[in-house]
């Protein structure tokens, strides 16, 4: 297919969006316009520059009609500024993650220190805090999302100057065995009963500290690294570009719950000639999408016919028997398509589990407006697999990011198999994946 045909397909998608504006938000990542552009760029049918110009023009046309011109220009300007910024070096410095599992009682309540991450840049204390007023029966129960509030670290304001929950501290003073003292600021989310998050100390404590002190208590930091934690990057098996794109896109679309976007991707690839209309992969993708986005495509009971890793994942959907606890990893991957990732820890509950991660450069959250409508946004699917043959799919949850660095929680489903003893977290691009192996040696998590 000539580039002009791909351009025509994309422009007609834009025209249809204008003719039926109720069905389109041109800047959402799962809008037909953005979805088609992303697919066409990914398979090389259209250059990113040409596709972005078309998406932006139709996005502006839609914004004029929706009275959102100013907002559109603001989002586009932020995106342009982000693109214009010099690319940071794809490196994540060495870090040391140490499990602590330490409960500290205070007059204002409790602080549970799950683990500490030490590096040359920052010291991060991963904590759960509960105010003294919380009823005992509520303790240990994860905050209901409907009641969750958030607070972000805004820099030093003076110890005790602000609180996050009823009487909970926003800042702490921390020190180490090498004479370093620093102030740590809190960011996280919570409710009246419980706040989870992180205290970040800058300047950092010594990365090789033997102990730290906080809230009047000394906490030893064993020097032995987590046994059995490994990380490597490996290429994906050879497959056609369009096939690789479809499967990666399907995994990423789980974030949006949007079967229509999958059909748009298929349509664009077929129109571009990158995929034959009768390619068997289309049927497989549709069947998986039918299971993934229940109510569309194949019946969810037809899981047996689905390819892996989807089959095992969908078969266990809805189970709530995961182990409870925290496994600290503290491992950094080699660069994966220009991104270096660190897996800090894995947390598991009855219904789900999550990975605490850091990345360099920063990856935007899929839900952030300025990250949407980017036609060459790399696809990164968060897969996981355990030693029992089960697969899991993740997406970004709570997240913090700038251009240089990002981090937060990747939330996986279904719940972990309680019999699993080893877990591979596998961030996957269209060409390669990192495999981060974590022994599931659970410690208490708040």
């Amino acid at each position: 297919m000539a580039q002009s045909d791909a351009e025509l397909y994309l422009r007609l998608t834009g025209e249809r969006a204008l003719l039926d504006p109720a069905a389109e938000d041109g800047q959402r990542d799962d809008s037909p316009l953005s979805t088609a552009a992303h697919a066409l760029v990914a398979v090389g049918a259209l250059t990113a520059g040409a596709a972005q110009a078309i998406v932006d023009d139709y996005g502006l046309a839609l914004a004029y009609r929706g009275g959102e011109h100013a907002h559109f220009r603001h989002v586009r300007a932020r995106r342009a500024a982000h693109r214009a910024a010099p690319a940071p070096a794809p490196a994540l410095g060495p870090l040391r993650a140490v499990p602590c599992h330490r409960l500290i009682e205070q007059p204002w309540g409790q602080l549970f220190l799950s683990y500490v991450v030490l590096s040359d840049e920052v010291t991060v204390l991963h904590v759960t805090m509960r105010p003294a007023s919380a009823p005992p029966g509520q303790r240990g129960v994860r905050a209901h999302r409907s009641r969750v509030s958030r607070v972000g670290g805004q820099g030093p304001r003076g110890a005790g100057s602000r609180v996050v929950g009823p009487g909970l501290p926003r800042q702490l003073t921390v020190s180490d065995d090498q004479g370093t003292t620093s102030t740590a600021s809190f960011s996280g989310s919570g409710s009246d009963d419980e706040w989870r998050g992180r205290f970040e100390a800058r300047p950092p404590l010594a990365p090789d500290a033997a102990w730290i002190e906080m809230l009047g208590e000394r906490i030893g930091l064993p020097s032995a690294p987590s046994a059995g934690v490994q990380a490597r990057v490996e290429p994906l098996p050879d497959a056609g570009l369009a096939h690789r794109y479809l499967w990666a896109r399907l995994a990423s679309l789980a974030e949006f719950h949007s079967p229509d976007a999958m059909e748009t991707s298929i349509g664009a690839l077929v129109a571009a000639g990158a995929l034959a209309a009768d390619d068997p992969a289309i049927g497989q993708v549709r069947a998986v999408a039918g299971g993934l986005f229940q109510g569309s495509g194949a019946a969810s009971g037809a899981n047996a016919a689905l390819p892996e890793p989807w089959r095992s994942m969908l078969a266990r959907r809805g189970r709530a028997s995961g182990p409870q606890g925290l496994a600290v990893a503290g491992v950094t991957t080699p660069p994966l398509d220009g991104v270096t990732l660190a897996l800090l820890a894995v947390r598991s509950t009855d219904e789900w589990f999550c990975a605490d991660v850091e990345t360099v450069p920063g990856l935007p959250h899929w839900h952030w407006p300025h990250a949407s409508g980017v036609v060459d946004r790399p696809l990164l699917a968060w897969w996981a697999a355990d030693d029992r043959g089960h697969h899991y799919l993740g997406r970004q949850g709570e997240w913090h990011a700038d251009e240089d660095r990002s981090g937060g929680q990747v939330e996986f489903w279904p719940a972990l198999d309680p019999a699993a003893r080893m877990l591979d977290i596998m961030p996957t691009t269209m060409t390669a994946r990192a495999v981060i192996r974590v022994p599931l040696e659970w410690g208490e998590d708040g």
Partner: protein
Amino acid sequence: MSTPWWRGVPPAVARVSCDGREHQLRWAAGELQAPGHPDLGSERILSALAGQRFACLDALDAWSAHADDLRALVLASRGPADPVTVRPDEPGPTGWTGRTGRAALATMQRRRAAVSAVMGGGAGASGEPRDDLATLLSLGGPMQARLTATVAASWRERLRNGAAPADAAAAEAARPALYAALYGRVVATLRAWTGRPDLRVALTMIGESAQPALVRDGDGIAVELPFGWVSDVWARGLGTCWDRFGLAAAPAGDGWALSAVGPDLGPPAPIRISAPRPPNSHSPAGLRPGIPPSS
């Protein structure tokens, strides 16, 4: 001699705040004019020497710069059912009237600065460089329609047989954008004509000298039109006329002969259109059906 593309498109006027005064921009016979600046050449020199910006002159420059800008066809209206209201981030070249005194002077000065920023390509509140195409679109619907007609006519010339090789090559490279511009306007017109907002339309963009056609296609419509339909028919407000869909328009006396298809989607039949009505700045076209179809 071929018919000027602007024949049948009546004049239009937009008001702008220029150098502290309210001026008019007037479009007529295919050209945008600034009647408030009778000595354009001298004022341009003064403007350059003094570093002073005039919203009217900037608008003329912008119009000239965007006279073949395909982005205008993306951004502007597809028809009466698709009004496009563009408001610049800052107070723009339209919309103020009726104030007097010191407060009015201050307002005018602020707006003059704002218009200069808009036309001069400075950064706006969004942090993004100004797009003076947006400012042209903000001149209002009638001016938008004429900008669309201007751009469409420019590209139609490049599509004609005998166009210079460079023009023909440019038209070939722009074919996806031209097809899309035609598609959006044809579909919007057909859907309004049939009253079916979900009407399926299969469009074939034919050569400028080929015969247009429209037939039933299952529960939809298949239509074959040249890109020139945008400037020849749509821009003159002849997309639908007397409940007919206009396929082509040709000059006939002081009016037009329209080849049109009726609601039964039968063969096209001619309609005679009378002379333009008096100039109406609120209508993209000044033609009106003068003789009811005989069939």
